[in-house]
């Protein structure tokens, strides 16, 4: 048996569904070939992991949890049905109008912005003026 044939039969060999003769041939090949033997070991590992996951049990209270979830969902939908129709309509409208007003106010506030360049600048001469010299402190002390 060559490697190609052996690889094709590995799953069936692992599941024990091969005819006896073929099974013996695969077993003989696995003893001699390290590559196929490695493949077989990895396949065994995969099956073990899947078997172990398959045997994991769900939460013992899962059924109760599911039924409680359904009950809660039904209660929520029932309480929503009790809300008066005008409230169901008025609330989203109020939220939408408030949101639109906030956006409009934000845009309006932003548009009032003026850059520093657009402001009237102080003449250069004024910046050299010494205010302290113009208004002596003595002027007030004489009063």
């Amino acid at each position: 048996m060559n490697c190609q044939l052996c690889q094709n039969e590995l799953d069936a060999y692992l599941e024990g569904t091969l005819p006896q003769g073929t099974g013996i041939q695969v077993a003989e090949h696995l003893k001699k070939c390290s590559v196929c033997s490695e493949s077989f070991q990895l396949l065994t590992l995969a099956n073990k992991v899947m078997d172990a996951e398959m045997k994991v049990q769900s939460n013992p209270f899962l059924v109760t949890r599911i039924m409680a979830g359904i009950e809660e969902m039904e209660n929520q939908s029932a309480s929503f049905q009790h809300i008066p129709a005008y409230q169901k309509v008025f609330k989203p409208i109020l939220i939408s109008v408030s949101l639109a007003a906030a956006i409009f106010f934000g845009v309006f506030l932003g548009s009032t912005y003026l850059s520093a360049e657009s402001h009237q600048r102080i003449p250069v001469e004024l910046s050299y003026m010494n205010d302290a010299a113009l208004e002596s402190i003595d002027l007030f002390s004489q009063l």
Partner: protein
Amino acid sequence: MTDAEIIDRINGGDRNLYRLLVERYQPLVFRTCMGFLHNKEDADDLTQDIFIQTYQTLTGYKGDSSFSTWIYRISVNACLNKIRKSSKSSFLQRFENVFGSEKNIEYSFPASEAENPEALLINTEQKEWVERALNSLPEKQRIAIVLSKYDDLSQKEIAEIMETTEGAVEALIQRAKANLREKLSSLYKKKKK
């Protein structure tokens, strides 16, 4: 009481009977979720969501196929959607790995397996290899192998769930097994280096 009778009575207003359906099909849905998600808590949560979703759409069940086929389809779609929408970024996953995610801690083999020293050799790293190899399979191959291995369904039943032919399912399972072997080999070789 048959599934059809239960569903008729639920749709007629006897809603408490839904518990019977949940008790009957909860192990099946949970196993399917485990096959796709590989995590007990996630599988529990998704099983709950699936049954709530099924309850909401129960009036839409026309009885064209068996209830088990119908709930299998819902479960497979829910699992695939959950995987697609998984919001965990690779950064968060790395963060979890650094500080030890619960996923690794809570995993344990059933008592009969744990008694076997060989089973104990399967460490979390090897479990991750298998999960990664399974997760990297194309969607249809993955569905076929999960339904075959985890739910132990026949090719005929899988074909009905996937709405395809038995021949196509057989081919999908064969390709899935070959791909799984290849992916595991490459992961093993990378590890050896």
